[in-house]
């Protein structure tokens, strides 16, 4: 039986922004590199991990999202992003994904009548995303 995402937890730079987020993606991937050599068949190598979090924010009247993102952009420093499927503590059934991220910009705008969103905000991860099942 499937489930519906209703209660994801998203924390950016220690700030709980869950109620400003309309969608979140946790991307964990490594590019496939060709490791084939003469005398053998196709061989594949794992390239460098290129993990990221991608978030669509809905801003509020206080511009909470822009207030949150602007210092991250201007500081040019690393910060932590944490995502869980549910707002409860990390567990075997509620994995926590954490990454040390940098931020390189966002685009805000929209047409008349559109919702005030900042879509596709990407937080690329330095290194790779760590997962925690609450057992540590």
């Amino acid at each position, binding site marked *: 039986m499937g489930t519906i995402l209703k209660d994801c937890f998203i924390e950016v*730079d*220690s*700030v*709980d*922004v869950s109620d400003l987020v309309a969608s979140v993606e946790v991307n964990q991937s490594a590019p496939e590199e060709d490791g084939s050599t003469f005398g053998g068949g196709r061989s594949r190598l794992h390239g460098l991990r290129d993990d990221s979090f991608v978030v669509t924010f809905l801003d509020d009247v206080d511009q*909470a999202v822009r*207030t*949150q993102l*602007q*210092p*991250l952009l201007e*500081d040019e*420093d690393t*910060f932590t992003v944490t995502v869980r499927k549910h707002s409860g503590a990390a567990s075997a059934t509620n994995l926590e994904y954490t990454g040390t991220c940098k931020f390189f910009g966002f685009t805000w705008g929209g047409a008349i009548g559109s919702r005030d969103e900042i879509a596709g905000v990407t937080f690329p991860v330095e290194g790779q995303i760590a997962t925690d099942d609450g057992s540590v």
Partner: protein
Amino acid sequence: MSNQFEVVGRRKIAGVAPGGVVTIEDEAQQRRLIAAGHIKPKAAKKTPPEPKEG
């Protein structure tokens, strides 16, 4: 500066609800969270003046 801050915005900071006290070690993060209006330095406790002798 102390690493203890009062959560003054509307959002939880490191799991601490507004009105609570949170410890932030990273100075750059302290600056960012203050700039965004999430935290403010925890007010130092007022020590009562020593009673005058005589």
